[in-house]
């Protein structure tokens, strides 16, 4: 065999790529969440920073360890572990001890993601898996809220209740909403209320989501249908009895709704692929959120409703399929 000139590369068409990468998308989401993280630190001080650091670094380290242990290529550089960690942190109260944060990161990475085969294969949102497991296993630690103290990083923590749990217990005890909740106030919008790190600053989260929409990382279908359903349903209940059911705006800005609708429900891996499927998914999330918030024993229903709809996603993917171009009916499919 005589030597030859360098071989030409032959690969299947297309020979052009949009340049989108998984890590790039994860990075954009991280970027969109940074202002919210900063807000959380501003409101809750150093404890929030600790939770954030433990969760993010913990997630990355645990993913790397797991992949090393199971003899897989280490893929922490794609940013998905960091994003999961950040979302876990956003689902924890600022007062969480370090072990709770680390446990949350471990649950999310190991139980939520890696046992299913890693990125792209988990049926449930890892951060929400962690949140629910922790909520059920450590109810007191997970509902020990501190009041935000803007800018006072070293102040002593003051225990307080979240608006949602406040309204729930008030309705349960007296049948009526407390005065300050039935009269919606703008302070909720800016996040000056107790709650998880990612539950306090609806406005900042919303701006981040707009950034993601602009960058094309998420589509509008899930957030809009989710928030729309919540507004519609809670609006109906509010009209029926404003003394008992809070204003829709209260629902929109309180609790983890904004975080859930814009960042958790839109998680690519665990949401449907088609636009119609996404709309259905968002509506389902909205429905369950309102039902759980108003009638369930948990004050907050976002995490549960997203997990529930995650479970429905395979069925949606299967039965809500687009009609191929040039085909009369979708009958040929499935």
């Amino acid at each position: 065999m005589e030597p030859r000139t360098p071989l030409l590369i032959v690969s299947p068409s297309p020979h052009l790529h949009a340049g989108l990468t998984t890590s790039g998308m994860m990075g954009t989401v991280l970027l969109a969440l940074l202002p919210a993280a900063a807000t959380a630190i501003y409101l809750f001080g150093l404890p929030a920073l600790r939770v954030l650091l433990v969760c993010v670094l913990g997630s990355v380290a645990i993913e790397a360890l797991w992949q090393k242990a199971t003899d897989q290529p280490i893929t922490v550089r794609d940013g998905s572990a960091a994003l999961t960690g950040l979302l876990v942190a956003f689902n924890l109260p600022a007062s969480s001890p370090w072990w709770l944060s680390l446990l949350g990161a471990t649950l999310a990475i190991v139980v939520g993601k890696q046992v299913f085969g890693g990125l792209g294969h988990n049926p449930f949102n890892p951060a929400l898996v962690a949140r629910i497991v922790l909520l059920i296993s450590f109810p007191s630690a997970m509902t020990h809220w501190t009041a935000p103290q803007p800018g006072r990083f070293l102040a002593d923590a003051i225990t307080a209740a979240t608006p949602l749990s406040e309204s729930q217990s008030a309705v349960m005890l007296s049948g009526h909403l407390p005065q300050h909740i039935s009269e919606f106030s703008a302070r909720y919008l800016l996040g000056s209320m107790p709650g998880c790190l990612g539950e306090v600053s609806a406005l900042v989260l919303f701006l981040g989501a707009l950034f993601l929409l602009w960058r094309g990382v998420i589509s509008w279908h899930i957030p809009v249908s989710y928030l729309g359903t919540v507004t519609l349903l809670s609006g109906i209940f509010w009209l029926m009895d404003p003394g008992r059911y809070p204003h829709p705006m209260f629902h929109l800005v309180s609790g983890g709704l904004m975080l859930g609708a814009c960042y958790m429900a839109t998680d690519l891996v665990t949401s449907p692929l088609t636009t119609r499927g996404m709309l259905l998914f968002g509506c389902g999330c909205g429905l369950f959120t309102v039902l759980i918030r108003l009638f369930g024993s948990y004050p907050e229903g976002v995490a549960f409703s997203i997990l529930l709809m995650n479970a429905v996603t395979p069925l949606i993917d299967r039965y809500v399929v687009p009609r191929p171009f040039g085909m009369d009916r979708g009958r040929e499919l499935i």
Partner: protein
Amino acid sequence: MKSLLLIMVGAVFVNNFVLARFLGLCPFLGVSKKVETALGMGMAVTFVMVVASGCTWLLHYLVLTPFNLEYLQTISFILVIATLVQMVEMIVRKSSPVLYQSLGIFLPLITTNCAVLGLAVLNIQHNYSFVQSLVFAFGAAVGFTLAMVLYAGLRERLILCPVPRSFRGTPIELITAGLLALAFMGFAGMVPN
């Protein structure tokens, strides 16, 4: 009417037989490989549950109570259920051989499906009326089918996943079932038990 709706919703979501009461786990894990099979199993169980619920209610209030034979509840209920399951098996075998094949051993095993017996006993314990017990049975069966179908959908996705060797098969299926049950915990407290 409102109480019937609450019973229904309660049985489907809040106290889902599989995911909240953990009854009927055997077919839940056994025949949930494919959505179609899961749906078929759900249908069969729905039929058995509703008819069994009616029969056992009548049996309890028309036969056992008048003759003070409540202690025969378990054995007589099982007898009724077993008979029904046998009939369902014959019907399925005749009408849908494919479904019969895919259900396999789990079809006769509905007999020992604790969900059915549990339902019959719960009917009596809750002092449901005849109509209420039928609605409760239907709700429980729908809840069972719902859980089956959701789980089957998840499992169909699982087979595409490169699950680590030590988690392959039953371990990952149980983890998935556990997470599904966690999601259903959100309904807790929605309907007074």
